[in-house]
């Protein structure tokens, strides 16, 4: 494989390292590139023992973009599991569907641990997610061991080290597990902060606050000046409009909308509704003026009629 790739490419360099790091299977996960393609990997992960996925070993593909690790990997499961759809890119905040939250210092191992960490969480309609019943999941976990992957010639029964008797339910690497929790937690906190404040903007330090405690005495700037500078910190809208990487992911947006629909804060008026309401006001105003014209016309008609009538009466009188 070494000869086939440009070792100067940062992605190749990095993936070679990751392949070496992940060469030996652990009891929780294993992943290696396909023989003929460094940018496509196959992985196996063990279902957490404290969940409906206990006893399951699940297989899948990881597709790395040429820009890796600047861009995230895509993850696709090949074993039916009841949590992630088979054959479809799945949606973790770590995978290709959330390029804006991917961190270049994460690795394939981070992704594997995130998958394991995500299995027992709720799908909640996210892309590629399934919410099967516990019974179905347990049945699939049992069945998963029979899977054999022809592409990488591995059987799920032997893909991972056998679980040790007193094993942790999840990957032994405490740090990595913490990371996986962070990832899932992050997705949650984001949605919460969005529905709470609509726009969660990066906090801004006012200069008065951000001086380190020791440096404060030496502050030469007059107070007005500081106030001025703090008012110059970027307005949220300006901050938002610059970076193309900034917008919320579609999934977050949908989740946000779903939440809005479900929960208390009344959704902002839809443009159509506004238009309709405006049309109504306009309509009422038009109806009013039409009525006024009608009344005035009637009054005029009555006056003219009376005039004619009076004139005729006069004429009649005259004749009489």
């Amino acid at each position, binding site marked *: 494989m070494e000869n086939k790739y440009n070792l100067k*490419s*940062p992605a190749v*360099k*990095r993936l070679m*390292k*990751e392949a070496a790091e992940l060469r030996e299977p652990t009891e929780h996960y294993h992943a290696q590139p396909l023989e003929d393609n460094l940018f496509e990997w196959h992985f196996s992960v063990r279902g957490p023992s404290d969940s409906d996925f206990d006893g399951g070993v699940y297989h899948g593909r990881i597709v790395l973009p040429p820009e890796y690790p600047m861009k995230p990997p895509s993850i696709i499961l090949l074993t039916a599991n009841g949590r992630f759809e088979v054959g*479809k*890119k799945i949606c973790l905040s770590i995978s290709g569907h959330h*390029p*804006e939250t991917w*961190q*270049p*210092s*994460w*690795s394939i191992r981070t992704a594997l641990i995130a998958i394991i960490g995500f299995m027992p969480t709720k799908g909640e309609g996210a892309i*590629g997610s399934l919410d099967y019943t516990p019974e179905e999941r347990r049945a699939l976990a049992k069945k998963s061991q029979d899977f054999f992957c022809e592409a990488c010639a591995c059987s799920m029964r032997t893909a991972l080290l056998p679980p040790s008797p007193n094993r942790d339910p999840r990957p032994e690497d405490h*740090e990595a597990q913490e990371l996986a929790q*962070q990832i899932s*937690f*992050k997705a949650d*906190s*984001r949605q919460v*902060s969005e529905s709470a*404040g609509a726009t969660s903007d*990066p*906090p801004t*330090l*006012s*200069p008065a*606050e*951000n*001086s*380190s405690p020791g*440096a*404060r005495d*030496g*502050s*030469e700037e007059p107070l007005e000046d500081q106030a*001025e*500078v703090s*008012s*110059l*910190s*970027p*307005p949220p809208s*300006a*901050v*938002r*409009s*610059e*970076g*193309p*990487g*900034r*917008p919320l*992911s*579609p999934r977050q*947006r*949908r989740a946000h*909308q779903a939440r809005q629909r479900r929960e208390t804060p009344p959704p902002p008026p839809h443009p159509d509704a506004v238009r309709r309401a405006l049309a109504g006001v306009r309509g009422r105003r038009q109806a009013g003026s039409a009525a006024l014209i009608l009344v005035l016309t009637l009054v005029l008609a009555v006056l003219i009629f009376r005039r004619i009538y009076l004139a005729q009466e006069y004429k009649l009188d005259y004749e009489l």
Partner: protein
Amino acid sequence: MAEEKQESSRPQGEMEGVNCLAYDEAIIAQQDRIQQEIATSNPLVSDRQPLKVLQNEYAKEDSIYQLKIKDLHKKYSYIRKTRPDGNCFYRAFGFSHLESLLEDSKELQRFKAVATKSKLDLVNEGFTEFTIEDFHNTFMDLIELCEKQPGLQELLGSFNDQNVSDYVVVYLRLLTSGYLQREHGFFQHFIEGGRSVKEFCQQEVEPMSKESDHIHIIALAQALNVSILVEYMDRGEGGTVNHHVFPEGSVPRIFLLYRPGHYDILYK
């Protein structure tokens, strides 16, 4: 731009399943296109230009900006622009500082020592060594390049090589994140939304294209012990440009121009 996209996606909220997936990919593709458009019209780091190029960027009758540009002229003569891709602060800082090291071997040695040690600090904080070492190596390569006293064009060339340039940005982001987390007791007070410092770093510091605010600047300035002066130019009244030095009271080495959402490099 971001807002527009959000607007246009609103009616799609009702879509489901397969359509969603296609729609997501369409959005990602659109974002890529926008990024490419920005990329073709702006180099990552531009040549040094006379400051008066700024005047042409604003209408003549835009008196607020024209006055402020005049004010800027009193102190600076040149500007070097960076690509507005959300990484501009790190790129501007990185280039500007390495450029200054070409003529200051004493600071170069100090900085090299700090940079060399920084990887160990990050590993001790829990960053995975094999994932951060490529970024660190690229950063060190550039510092070593400066030691060889290359022409400015060579340094500029490296900073315009997307691979190299982005790796430097990643490493500066990691240093910022590492410092914020090390000093979390202090920085926690400035983080809104009930997030921990670690969450803030994972959401606003480490991912690429996340923009920088005061908190990022002060952390990076302190992590590397390099003083940064930022001139703030926006629509505020007053006709003068205000500046702020990070950390406060230090003697600035790096001069940056901030306009809402973007940083460029200034030269005296």
